[in-house]
């Protein structure tokens, strides 16, 4: 595919953003319908181009070389930007544009009549553009640029209803926590540059990703350098992908409009972290330490987040914890070396998770609330939403033969086969997560769609003002078609993209083989491990057990959730209070330690020592030097003295250095 076409994938949503914010909003007003259509057109065209990119990448054996262009330079430093088109990029492009397109179409219905309609679509275009830029980048600094812009997009959209204090707080929290994590990424960039001489000696640019791959091939990156760079990169990834212990922003991010959550959770923002680790996977592979850290953090996150999903009553939060948990899954897959399986799971997850979020949007549209305690019985009011939500739940739980089953199974098989203690441990964690996932998904499904309807927004004292209250019934077509379309890949894509047998059009293990065909990744254990029938049967049984437990507790109610809750009261409280992480971070670390102590001390020092020193000396001078009083105002002397002392300090320092 020609280079200009590849750039268009990125520039079309950018053009849409500019068109909406510079032309449409000022001339046609903040509610112009045109904004939605422009965005859909741009993202749709990007989607088509992404498919072209995927096919041409396949046709050119997994890599298309594009030239680099200078952005800015100083001395020998040169910031060159370019496109990296490899299997990872191609797959990500399709995921991002495909899911984004569905979300944009859906939003026409969901955001209908909102005062900030144009702002919504402008931000959505920007957000999609940023993610595409990240995926396409062939330079670490270029990645950093779009990485931060992804953060901006999420900030604008999570805080979309900015007059709600909770939304404004959630947006800020998401940005600051991810920025905190990005500090690690920044240090990784600096450290790589610090060690850039070996690159330059081999005529390579330490920031160009293909050059980094090349350097790894040549063996000129030492394990020590690779380890620290990889860990820094992973720190950044932990923030965006909401990995333990930086997960706290993601549940709060539910304050954004529901289609935004669908986009964030399926295709942009949180998948960016997994993508980033995958992008620098050759670097991680050199360092066993980095790999084990990734695997363990992923494994811990997988069950940690799932455990909070077990008790949440907010349907979107259940899905949010589910996302965190699934991202942990992908990370642990990367950590045990299952590169192809991780991206395969990212791929399948994108479809069913987008489907589930949009489904929850429909539920909210009908009931006016997100609290599942006030739902129930929606199956008969909204059969299509129910059917697609069921498909999504089954796929997420990993039930044969839906998409989620195949990708999840591949990760489990990899962890099982890895043979080292870390692999064994994370396999165990992953298996526990399978059980929890099936349980909380079907708990949510039963609470929402089965049983009797419990009143919706009218019964819920905390129902948010947006959502238009209660009007039971199926959503309009524009909000149903995206679900129906997404349901197809949620069922089929797992088997079709990565089949166990040769399907003719699609060869056996196509996706894994394709992802591994990247020439830079030749050290990988090639392909997927053999399909392990007994392992697959076992993990399916575990998932079914989770569903069964949910069925007994929330459908036939042979086991009372209240009784269980009372039996494990402390555990229940711990889970529903999210392990007190918000309290630890916000109340103790930020409010007490940072704001109350550190910043207080600095501010006190500034006023009462630095500035007061001047005033004190002035007072002393004014009193002692009464003879000179008529010559000076006191103030003059004050600052004169202060500056003189400052100068003496510098002077002393100078003498000290010289001596």
């Amino acid at each position, binding site marked *: 595919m020609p280079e200009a076409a590849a750039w268009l994938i990125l520039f079309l949503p950018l053009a849409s953003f500019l068109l909406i914010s510079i032309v449409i909003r000022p001339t046609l007003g903040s509610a112009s319908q045109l904004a939605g259509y422009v965005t859909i057109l741009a993202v749709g065209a990007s989607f088509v181009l992404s498919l072209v990119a995927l096919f041409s990448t396949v046709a050119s054996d997994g890599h298309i070389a594009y030239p680099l262009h200078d952005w800015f330079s100083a*001395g020998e*430093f040169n910031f060159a930007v370019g496109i990296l088109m490899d299997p990872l990029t191609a797959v990500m492009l399709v995921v991002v544009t495909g899911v984004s397109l569905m979300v944009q179409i859906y939003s026409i219905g969901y955001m209908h009549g909102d005062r900030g309609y144009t702002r919504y679509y402008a931000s959505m275009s920007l957000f999609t553009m940023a993610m595409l830029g990240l995926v396409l980048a062939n330079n670490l600094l270029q990645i950093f640029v779009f990485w*931060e812009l992804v953060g*901006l997009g999420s900030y604008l959209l999570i805080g979309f209803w900015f007059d709600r204090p909770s939304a404004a707080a959630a947006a800020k929290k998401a940005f600051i926590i991810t920025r905190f994590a990005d500090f690690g990424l920044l240090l990784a960039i*600096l450290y790589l540059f610090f060690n850039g001489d070996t690159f330059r000696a081999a005529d390579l640019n330490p920031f160009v990703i293909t050059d980094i791959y090349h350097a790894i091939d040549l063996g000129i990156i030492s394990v020590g350098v690779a380890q620290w760079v990889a860990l820094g990169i992973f720190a950044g990834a932990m923030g965006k992908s909401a990995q333990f212990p930086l997960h706290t922003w993601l549940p709060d991010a539910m304050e954004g409009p529901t289609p935004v959550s669908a986009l964030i959770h399926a295709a942009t923002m949180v998948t960016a972290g997994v993508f980033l680790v995958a992008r620098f996977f050759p670097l991680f592979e050199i360092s066993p330490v980095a790999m084990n850290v990734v695997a363990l953090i992923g494994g811990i996150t997988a069950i940690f987040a799932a455990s909070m999903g077990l008790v949440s009553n907010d349907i979107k939060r259940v899905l949010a914890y589910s996302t965190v948990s699934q991202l942990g899954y992908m990370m642990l897959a990367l950590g045990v070396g299952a590169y192809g399986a991780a991206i395969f799971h990212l791929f399948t997850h994108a479809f069913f998770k987008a489907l589930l979020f949009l489904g929850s949007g429909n539920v909210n549209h009908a009931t006016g609330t997100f609290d599942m305690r006030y739902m129930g019985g929606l199956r008969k009011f909204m059969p299509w939403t129910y059917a697609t939500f069921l498909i999504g739940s089954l796929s997420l739980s990993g039930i044969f033969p839906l998409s989620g089953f195949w990708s999840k199974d591949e990760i489990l098989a990899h962890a099982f086969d890895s043979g080292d203690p870390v692999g064994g441990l994370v396999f165990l964690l992953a298996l526990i997560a399978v059980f929890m996932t099936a349980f909380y998904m079907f708990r949510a499904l039963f609470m929402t769609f089965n049983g009797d309807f419990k009143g919706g927004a009218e019964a819920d004292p905390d129902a948010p003002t947006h959502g238009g209250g209660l009007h039971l019934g199926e959503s309009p077509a524009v909000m149903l078609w995206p679900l129906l379309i997404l349901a197809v890949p949620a069922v089929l894509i797992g088997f079709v993209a990565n089949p166990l047998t040769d399907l003719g059009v699609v060869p056996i293990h196509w996706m894994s083989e394709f992802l591994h065909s990247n020439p830079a990744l030749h050290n990988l254990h090639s392909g997927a491990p053999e399909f392990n029938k007994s392992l697959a049967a076992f993990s399916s049984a575990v998932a079914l057990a989770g569903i069964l437990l949910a069925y007994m507790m929330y459908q036939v109610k042979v086991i009372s959730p209240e009784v269980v809750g009372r039996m494990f009261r402390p555990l229940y409280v711990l889970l529903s209070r999210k392990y007190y992480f918000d309290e630890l971070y916000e109340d103790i670390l930020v409010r007490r330690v940072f704001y109350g102590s550190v*910043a207080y001390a*600095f501010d006190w020092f500034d006023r009462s020592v630095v500035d007061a020193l001047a005033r004190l000396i002035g007072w002393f001078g004014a009193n002692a030097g009464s003879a000179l009083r008529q010559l000076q105002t006191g103030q003059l002397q004050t600052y*004169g003295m202060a500056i003189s002392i400052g100068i003496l300090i510098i002077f002393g320092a100078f003498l000290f250095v*010289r001596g």
Partner: protein
Amino acid sequence: MGFSGLLTITVFLPIAGAIVIALLLRGDKLIRTFAALVATADLVLTVIVFARYDTSVGGVQMVDKIRDWIPGMGDGFAVQYFLGVDGLSAPLVLLTGLLGFVAVLASWHIGHRVREYFMWLLALQTGVMGVFLSLDFLMFFLFWELELLPMFMLISVWGSEPRNKREYSAMKFLIFTILGSAFMLVGILVLFFSTGTFDMTALPDAIAGGKLLLPAGMVFTLLFVAFAVKLPLWPFHTWLPDAHTDAPTAGSVMLAGVLLKMGGYGMLRVSVGMFPEVVSQFAWILATAGVINIVYGGIVVFRQTDLKRLIAYSSVSHMGFVVLGIASVAGVAGSVSPLGLTGAAMQMFTHGTITGLLFLLVGFIYDKAHTRYIPDLGGLAKRMPFVTVALMVAGLASLGLPGTSGFVAEIMIFLGTFTVWPWATAIGATGVVLAAGYILWTMQRVMFGPIKERFADITDASGMQFVPIAVLVFAIIVVGVFPSIISDVFSSGIEPITRSLENVAQTRLR
């Protein structure tokens, strides 16, 4: 050498305008319009100067020089008239033209002693412009002093209430700077009596080749103190929050936008350009001081409740990046990268536009809401969408978001200095995390959340108010997306400095 006159007009046009206003014009409206015309003309001139500067040739260009301007008062004490522009000053000249223009437009609502106000404002612009364009050290000094009085008047007459507070702040500003420049004057005179010249283009060689009356380190220190006070470097920074808080909007814009840059410019042109050897030895002090500024300023910001004071402390933090960038002069293993110095220069330019915009918007909010006390504000976004977007752009640029000019400067500084001072840079880089915290927290408290009842009728920017805001937003984004417009010019000015630093580093290695 010659006399093209372009720079002379650029420097003196504003003060000529001020004289016309003082002597000839009557009526507030006329004065305002005339001042705006003068500022616009000067902006056009600075754009011409910037655009005409040829980086492929480099060096000093568009020279206006009269060798014996004030001829022989005794033995060779001839003062020359010498204006010239090089890669280091060209972008700063543009910045001064830009912010001078913005400052005049931002003063449209001034109704108190209008004539004097615009007189001082225009005179201030000549002072700053002269500092950036003088290549004769004595002239440099005169312009440095010339800028003081207008600023003092602007703060003490048109500053915020109460009167005794603003007079205190104005006096504090004046005394800090004057004492700094007293040391500078001594330094300049020592240089003159040692080398026999005030010519700033000849001084680097003269200092390197000759013998100074005082140890070079001491002369360096004398000059450095003046720049450090102006920048301001901790612990000389306490004048800044007071002056900023009490200055009128245009005063704050000029103060933060260009006056602080005089300090950074002096460091690059004089401290680094003339004393490469000394500055390399002292680089560790610069690195430490820069980091203290960044972290100390960045933490103190959090406790501020006055919007202007908050931005003032964020300036302390951001100007620390300039010093951190300069600290890269020490180099590693005999090689000095221009990246850190270019980044420092870029940071001056971008901080000028970003903080200029921040003060402009805060002044605007204050005029509408009649308070700058953050707990009293809230929810303004609902009624002020344009101001909110502009404040968001400025805020995001301030926290170094890519796509804005703030990012380019900071990443250059980090990359350039990390290779020399890894630990200091790593600590300094926490400044961007702090910035994210205080900027977004401030946005949340001031603009977001439900709108307070008393602001129900507040209005957004309109008419004339759009222009200066839009101009700065545009500048921030254009430089963020196409940084080489500015950075290539700075690079060409930094290049000879880097070469002399490299010589020093090589000699030291041997």
